[in-house]
């Protein structure tokens, strides 16, 4: 009964599964999400191929020993600078939650996860002066966007041998993006205006993951994922627009040189340029292929209880797929630290990660942020 209630709660959580906002999410489909748990984010995402609470590789759920549910809370404190000025921003999101476990009496695992795929959260203010009836009038325009694309994944993993796990994921893309533009005039003879629009997204993708233990201390992960395209409907109008989504290829390596220490690294490549033509056709800037890489370690003081106070460190590098200007390249760097603590006979755990992120495009657009993530894991 408790399991049923927990499952219902997790599945019924609000669809606010967006990751942190960014000025680099203004263009295209927004800022890509990482689909990682707080535990994986503590080491820069380097272990996300092997983390069953993350949705990066469907094969990772083969590490679930029992029914496990987890969700992640993210707080972002950001300072963004563009030629118009600097803004201090904070936001609060639920970027990831999942539930899954082994199917009894079979070599199969099943998991359901809900992750942020891209985020279009921003609020931009444009002070200006316009000429109305031959007279200059100061105006303040605010363009606001909330929402993005979420990834609902159903993953199945199969473990033919103790050293090999294969996972297959079906991804349903859904989500809503609410946009509005608000103008206020300094001259009270003019009424403030507000216009709004709503985009809804729908799509389907598949992913295939592989985890193979090469030696006792070395595990390799491979990923191939095709996200197809996302269909976009504006204000429930009949004409839909399609934007191709990328094919992702990735590889990861986990090495345990000592009993208390694990090292990992991963590389992912997304060919976001598939979306370029669709975005440009709609007047956008475009999309470029991206590579992201992460490396990190996890030091476990007590290998018998690895979730009690581990030290996680990592770094991350990523290119961002939707530049703010044609020909520009936006990048992201981050360093992270994290830990966790299990209690209730390891039936519950809290994970915490703190990440310092720098993003930039040319010298004009940059931002830095502290991202604090807390994950809660429950094994009922």
């Amino acid at each position, binding site marked *: 009964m408790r399991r049923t209630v927990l499952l219902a709660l997790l599945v019924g959580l609000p669809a606010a599964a967006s990751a942190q906002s960014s000025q680099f999410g203004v263009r295209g489909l927004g800022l890509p999400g990482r689909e990682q748990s707080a535990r994986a984010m503590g080491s820069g995402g380097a272990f996300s191929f092997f983390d069953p609470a993350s949705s990066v590789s469907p094969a990772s759920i083969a590490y679930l020993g029992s029914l496990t549910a987890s969700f992640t809370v993210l707080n972002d404190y950001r300072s963004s600078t563009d*030629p118009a000025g*600097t803004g201090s921003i904070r936001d609060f999101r639920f970027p990831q939650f999942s539930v899954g476990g082994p199917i009894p009496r079979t070599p199969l695992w099943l998991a359901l996860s809900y992750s942020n795929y891209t985020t279009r959260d921003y609020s931009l203010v444009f002070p200006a002066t316009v000429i109305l*009836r031959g007279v200059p009038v100061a105006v303040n325009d605010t363009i606001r966007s909330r929402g993005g694309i979420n990834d609902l994944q159903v993953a199945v993993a199969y473990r033919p041998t103790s050293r090999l796990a294969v996972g297959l994921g079906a991804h349903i893309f859904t989500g809503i993006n609410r946009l509005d533009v608000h*103008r206020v005039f300094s001259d009270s003879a003019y009424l403030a205006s507000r216009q709004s629009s709503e985009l809804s997204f729908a799509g389907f993708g598949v992913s295939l993951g592989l985890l193979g233990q090469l030696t006792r201390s070395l595990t390799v992960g491979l990923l191939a994922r095709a996200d197809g395209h996302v269909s976009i409907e504006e204000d429930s109008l009949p004409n839909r627009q399609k934007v191709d989504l990328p094919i992702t290829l990735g590889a990861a390596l986990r090495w345990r040189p000592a009993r208390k220490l694990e090292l990992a690294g991963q590389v992912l490549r997304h060919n976001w340029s598939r979306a370029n033509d669709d975005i440009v056709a709609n*007047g956008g800037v475009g999309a470029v292929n991206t590579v992201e890489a992460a490396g990190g370690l996890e030091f476990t003081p007590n290998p018998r209880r690895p979730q009690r106070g581990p030290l996680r460190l990592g770094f991350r590098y990523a290119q961002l797929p939707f530049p703010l200007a044609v020909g520009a390249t936006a990048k992201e760097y981050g360093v992270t630290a994290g830990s966790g603590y299990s209690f209730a006979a390891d039936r519950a755990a809290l994970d915490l990660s703190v990440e310092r992120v720098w993003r930039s495009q040319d010298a004009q657009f940059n931002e830095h942020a502290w991202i604090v993530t807390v994950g809660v894991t429950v094994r009922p």
Partner: protein
Amino acid sequence: MKARSGLLVATLALAAACSEQLTQPGQCPELCPGGTPQSQEEILTALPGQDSTFTGYTERSSGSVMLVASGIPTLADASFGVIKFAARSDSIMFRDTLRAYTIDSVRLSLLSVAHDTAARNVKVQLYRLPSNLDTTTVSYPGVSPFFIPANLITEAVLPDTTVADTLRLTLKGSDLANLTLQPADAGVLAIGVAITGNIPTGGRIGNRRSILPPDFITFVTPISTPTQAQAIDVAATFADYVSLQTPVVDPTFLTVGGVPSSRVLLRFPWPARLRDSVTIVRATLELIPAQPIAGLPNDPGTLNVRGLATDFGAKSPVEPLSLGVLPLAANVTDTVRVEIARVLQFWQIGLLRPPAMFLSVSPEVETFTRAVFGSTRSGSPPRIRLNYLPRFPFSRP
């Protein structure tokens, strides 16, 4: 234990910090997906022949004031108030017996609803009129000969600092001779009201329907021993005004206000693109006076512009919430501009809202204000200067 506490504290702190502030300055074009809103301006001219004046919505008998003036609303004009009181009895019931009385004093009360406080030495003058005045045929030529110094009962100067005031004019002693009722008067007092000032001016005096109707009180002492002062209060049976000139509505132009009240019905083109998707930020109705706006200085009537709930022509019901208002100052010759964005926003709601509006002056038949505007027939049609934002091209990905 410490680690567990630390994590719990961190979790609670994180939950407590669940707030959002996403606003930052934007830079175009990089951070302007879809650009910025572009304002557009357009002028809508009243449809030819679809601008009309209709008169008779409110009769002067419905008003609660008398418009009394000299040189208002035009220099050649003049208006007098005419008040006729009920008959005053020549005896009074005192100690269960009807008794004759002697008059100690008389008080006449009037409500001055408004006057031009910028004029100086504004006087309300009361003149004696024949008690047999036929109120059914009262006219300016009929009463004006009585507005001579010989018939002056009394006068009072209106204060410069107060727009509205209650006038209580008390006569006693030798002044009572001006109000002596002869047997031929049968106890009936009729008075005329005039207003003068150092400049052409006027005022609005409350009539029988005002909150303080004209009142005629006689303070008497019954002839009796012992005796005691008594009061005889007589109400007005007639209180109206007569004017030297009666403006005629010229159908070539658009007339609003006046007595009886005139309203203007205007219809405008309203293309679908404006109805469907634009956001109206300002709309100004521009009316070109065909002559200086008539009225009492510093006591403007209010020009009301209301959208129609549905278009039945002259009897169309108006939508009270779609309202543009403007005080109409007297003697204005410049273009009159009324902000009517709320009216046009109302036109955007639903398909049945007609793109039409009614113009009226309030308080109807209770103000000197009367405006005559150009029309589509006179070559200076009403028009709407409209500022709007087209549908914003929200950025699709």
